[in-house]
């Protein structure tokens, strides 16, 4: 305690408090550790050391300059003013994310699109909800994490490219953290809002409510959202069968503030989707259900070097059931349920020391993924055909992430980050293990990997110009499917995929650069990133193997290409023409090749969008054109065909009525006005997208 002795009284007291809290933390952690593994205690000690170091040297004054971060943030908005910024406030989260130049969505229907960051899909990216790791329970990626929350829960989505997203886990392409709404203590009292919406194209009905209450030391936020949609119609009024869905999402967050700088918060999300059609796939989903819970403790020392210390324990469970009973002429009826349970925690401290703004994040999770397949033979006397497609794979992950953002001078800053993680997999089911041993006779039931990440970024700001430059290295472990999948049918290339437990870690060397300029009227930003990915994991056909799936083209085994390269660049422009008119534009170019100069799959062709906004008082309106050039760099080897170019036109208008402190926001618009029939490079099996759609969103809040 000598550390505290030369401090004045208040600091000492605070120090004691801090110490007490630390103990509390420890006992909470203790429980957690017992559940899994004692060796994590060592990591915990490291964190404590860090925490101690961070409180050290408290005399320094805070920097007034904060370093620049190059991340992209999509603001979805606070509940109360949800509809202020977006032309279609009750759009799905997928539609929101799509606005980013870094993100593209793989679509298998009108529900649960799979986000790709820098043209990299789920395996190579990291999607978290408030820092929590959640893993989909579907072997066919029909339930990305984004499908388990609602846009009305969210405040923003932080998109980080490449290793800058390594804070919550190992990634190659980048990370999206979906940040939830939370009332702040500035705005006390009750608040409520009702959201309703209707879309003509798929007869989608949307109904939502939000009720919030805040007093001086307590808040509770609740949110409910229900969506019900029929089949949508592609251009020329062509109905896309099996594209219906129904879902509801209910969420509650409640926090209690004590001693003015400590906050404890519990949160629950329950999401349930039923009768979800996937027109691009041979099966639909009868149930996708998630329960996502967390308990967070936040501590904000007032004048210490630690700005904020946040610790969270979380648990989530997902059940996913595929269903083919509604499809006509199924060659063989099958059930394919999957389950994914994750327990985890993170403890994250942010602080300032001289010119250093640093973050330390210790995080860990334990995931259990099981998926099985039961096939029903035509002859009812025959035994059912059963196999594990995910053989009860347990993943235990623990990582320490450190970041230091150094303010060099008023113009420039330098950011370093690094992480070291242990990734442990175990196949817990004997039948599943023996199934995989058919392919890998010498395979062990468990495998441990060390994952490293390091990155550095330099940024320079002067006279409205912002330059950024970064270099990074990162690694990831194979996903459950890539490592342990068993006859996973991919309806895109029509191959059955077999996991490969012996895969090496995939590693990426990345370089990124950005150039931005902004003045009062005009802003422009050009960002580029280049990835050289070694041991690039992808399925390769094995001609000696016979596909299991009826009508399958063959079997692919996950193997590693020597390397692959991916390059992305996007340009965003904004021009405030006058008080009322604003123009925006976006241009994105991507490129992806393997080591033999063959095209990689799911690489976007040149794409663009342009928007013209008009705003006067409470009225606003916008017209938008959005399109892709022809996809010339497609990959027939991975099942792609050439996707023709397209362009669509959207308009939206809104008006905000304010009466006695209540707000009624009415937004209406037409998407794909010309009813163009089109599909994009990321539409699974080239299913067409929505044709003309009128939408109406009404939000009433008081």
């Amino acid at each position, binding site marked *: 305690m000598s550390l505290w002795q030369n401090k004045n009284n208040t600091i000492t007291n605070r120090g004691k408090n801090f110490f007490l809290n630390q103990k509390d933390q420890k006992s909470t952690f203790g429980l957690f550790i017992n559940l899994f593994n004692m060796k994590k205690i060592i990591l915990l000690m490291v964190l404590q050391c860090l925490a101690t170091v961070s409180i050290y040297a408290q005399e320094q004054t805070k920097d007034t300059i904060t370093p620049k971060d190059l991340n992209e943030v999509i603001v979805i908005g606070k509940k109360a003013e949800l509809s202020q910024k977006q032309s279609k406030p009750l759009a799905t989260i997928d539609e929101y994310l799509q606005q980013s130049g870094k993100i593209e969505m793989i679509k298998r229907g009108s529900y649960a699109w799979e986000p790709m960051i820098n043209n990299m899909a789920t395996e190579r990216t990291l999607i978290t909800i408030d820092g929590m790791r959640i893993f989909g329970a579907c072997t066919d990626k029909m339930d990305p994490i984004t499908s388990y929350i609602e846009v009305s829960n969210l405040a923003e989505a932080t998109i980080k490219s490449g290793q800058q997203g390594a804070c919550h886990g190992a990634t190659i392409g980048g990370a999206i953290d979906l940040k939830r709404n939370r009332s702040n203590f500035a705005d006390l009292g009750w608040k409520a809002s009702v959201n309703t919406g209707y879309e003509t194209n798929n007869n989608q009905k949307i109904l939502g409510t939000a009720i919030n209450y805040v007093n001086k030391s307590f808040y509770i936020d609740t949110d409910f959202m229900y969506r019900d949609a029929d089949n949508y119609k592609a251009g020329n009024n062509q109905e896309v069968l099996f594209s219906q869905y129904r879902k509801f999402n209910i969420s509650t967050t409640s926090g209690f503030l004590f001693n003015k700088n400590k906050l404890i918060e519990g949160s629950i999300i329950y999401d349930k989707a039923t009768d979800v059609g996937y027109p691009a796939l041979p099966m639909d989903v009868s149930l996708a259900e998630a329960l996502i819970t967390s308990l967070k403790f936040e501590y904000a020392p007032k004048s210490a070097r630690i700005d904020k210390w946040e610790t969270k324990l979380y648990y989530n469970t997902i059940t996913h059931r595929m269903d083919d009973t509604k499809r006509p002429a199924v060659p063989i009826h099958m059930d394919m349920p999957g389950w994914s349970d994750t327990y985890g925690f993170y403890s994250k401290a942010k602080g300032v020391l001289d010119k250093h703004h640093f973050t330390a994040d210790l995080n860990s999770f334990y995931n259990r993924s099981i998926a099985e397949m039961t*096939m029903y033979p035509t002859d009812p006397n025959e035994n059912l055909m059963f196999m594990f497609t995910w053989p009860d794979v347990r993943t235990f992950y623990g990582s320490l992430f450190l970041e230091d953002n150094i303010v060099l001078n008023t113009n420039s800053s330098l950011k370093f980050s690094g992480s070291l993680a242990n990734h442990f997999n175990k196949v817990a089911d004997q039948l599943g293990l023996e199934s995989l041993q*058919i392919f890998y006779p010498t395979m062990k039931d468990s495998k441990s990997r060390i994952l490293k990440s390091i990155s550095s970024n330099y940024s320079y700001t002067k006279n409205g110009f912002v330059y950024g430059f970064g270099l990074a290295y990162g690694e990831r472990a194979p996903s459950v499917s890539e490592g342990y999948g068993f006859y996973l049918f991919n309806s895109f290339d029509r191959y059955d995929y077999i996991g490969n437990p012996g895969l090496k870690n995939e590693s990426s060397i990345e370089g990124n650069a950005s150039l931005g300029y902004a003045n009062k009227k005009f802003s422009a930003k050009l960002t580029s990133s280049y990835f050289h990915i070694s041991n690039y994991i992808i399925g390769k056909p094995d001609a000696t193997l016979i596909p*299991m799936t009826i009508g399958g083209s063959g079997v692919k085994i996950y193997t590693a290409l020597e390397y692959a390269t991916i390059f992305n660049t996007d340009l965003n422009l904004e021009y405030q023409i006058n008080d009322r008119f604003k123009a925006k534009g976006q241009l994105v170019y991507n490129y992806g090749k393997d080591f033999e100069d063959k095209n990689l799959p799911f690489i976007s062709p040149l794409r663009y969008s342009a928007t013209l906004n008009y705003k006067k008082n409470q009225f606003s309106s916008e017209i938008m054109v959005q399109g892709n050039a022809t996809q010339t760099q497609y990959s027939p080897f991975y099942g792609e065909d050439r996707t023709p170019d397209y362009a669509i036109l959207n308009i939206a208008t809104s008006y905000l009525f304010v009466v006695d402190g209540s707000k009624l926001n009415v937004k209406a618009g037409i998407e794909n006005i010309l009813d163009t029939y089109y599909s994009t490079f990321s539409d699974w099996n080239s299913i067409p997208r929505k044709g003309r759609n009128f939408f109406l969103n009404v939000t009433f809040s008081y």
Partner: protein
Amino acid sequence: MKFQLKNIALLLITAITFSSCTNDNETPFVANELQGITKIQEITNDTHIVELYSATGSLQQGYNAISLRIKNKITNAYDKNATITWAPLMQMTTKSHACPYSAVAKTVGKETLYNGYIVFQMAENTMEHWSLTVNYTINGVAFTANKQISVPASAKQRVTTFTGTDGTKYIVALIDPVTPKVATNDMTVGVFKMETMLLFPVVDGFKVKIDPRMPSMSNHGSPNNIDLTQSIADKLYHGKLSLTMTGYWKINLQLLNANNEVLKGEAITDLVPASSIYFEVEF
């Protein structure tokens, strides 16, 4: 610490109590002799009762591992040092014939049991039946016992009889796996030829190619199967059988002679979904 000691003491007491229980209840060795086998039937003569056993308590078409023991009618004791041979015979309406069978040997680790195998290449029917003759010598005195035995058809094909391209009649029987798993199973097969109506010796130096398929699922196969070759030790043919899921599998066969010439069976292609010789497993 006190608490811990108490726990340990409690644990010890419990352990002792339980172990003494087991001692009290320990069954005599006779039950141990019959662990895992059930009586099929008895064959009686004037002096002895020959008890036949198998894992299921019955016989069926195909390969059967059979245990037996001989009980003295007078002393009720089981003989421990007999020399035994057996001779199964199928009495058909027009002719009779035997089948492949092994010698009968004392079972290792047992006091009174003897064992061997018999491959019934056909099942009984209302007109035609199998009988088993057991010949045994005890202390230099020869005895014989004979009785009809019941050999119903097996639910799935476990044995196949055919004439090879060399004009010889062969019998191929599935021995293992008895309980197939979703795994790489050890597979054992017996290959025999018909030399005479009564003599069916093991064939040496051949090869049995396997191609397991699921006819209910577009006839897909499985990887990393290993064709069967003969082992010197037991004269049977051993290989590896991969089954990637539960359900009904047809194990298509090809029999190759020492010169690698196919004597019977076809390779599976899109046009040839099944071989003319095969086994079936379902689990």
